[in-house]
């Protein structure tokens, strides 16, 4: 239970860190420095989303293997996670291109699209009958949800 609280606390800290990162005061006024700092924040954002995705996927895998989650709900949840992962992949590619000097790529929209992909479906409404499985799924998705919620706060819309 202590570790659950630690993870939940990390999730809350994460939200505020994301929210703060978009409006942090930059010491350097060099546009190149500011740009690199912004890309670094974006890269940290997609990395954190990916960690949330992997944690969520491992959670539903464990629940399914243990018989707590029915296979049909694993399929629905996994489909949702893959959709968010693919949006995350597009953002990764856009940030890489921007890092390489492509000034035409709209990496910010690609990052915001991750939050849109996450919001397109609410996994808690999949109709999972088991109350226990539902609670476990919410815990497993908590980190991902926090990372997705923090994206618009940090990168604006």
């Amino acid at each position: 239970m202590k570790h659950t609280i630690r993870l939940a606390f990390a999730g809350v800290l994460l939200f505020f860190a994301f929210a703060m990162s978009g409006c942090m005061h930059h010491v350097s006024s060099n546009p190149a420095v500011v740009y690199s700092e912004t890309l670094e924040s974006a890269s940290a954002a997609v990395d954190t989303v990916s960690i949330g995705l992997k944690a969520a996927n491992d959670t539903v895998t464990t629940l399914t293997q243990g018989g707590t989650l029915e296979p049909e709900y694993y399929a629905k949840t996994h489909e949702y996670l893959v959709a968010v992962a693919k949006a995350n992949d597009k953002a990764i590619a856009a940030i890489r291109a921007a890092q390489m000097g492509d000034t035409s790529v709209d990496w910010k929209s690609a990052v915001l699209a991750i939050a849109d992909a996450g919001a397109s479906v609410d996994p808690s409404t999949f109709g999972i009958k088991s109350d226990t499985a539902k609670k476990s799924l919410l815990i497993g998705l908590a980190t991902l949800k926090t990372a997705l919620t923090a994206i618009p706060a940090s990168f604006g819309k």
Partner: protein
Amino acid sequence: MDYTQLIASLLPLLLQYGPELVKSVSALIHQNPQTAGETDEAYIARLNVMITANLNDAAKNDAAVETAPDPTPAA
């Protein structure tokens, strides 16, 4: 299986991802600021190393999710 048992069964996952998340949070909070005396060029180079590392880690985790085998027990 009651709630307490389920949390206990998920503890390995929480232990596994807890440290990673705290690390990500710390990185975001500190924002890897430019150190005193560090030139802009050196700082940008350092940031690029971190960007590449973050993106590579993210791509690896995404791929793990997308290619995860179906855990459904065989009928």
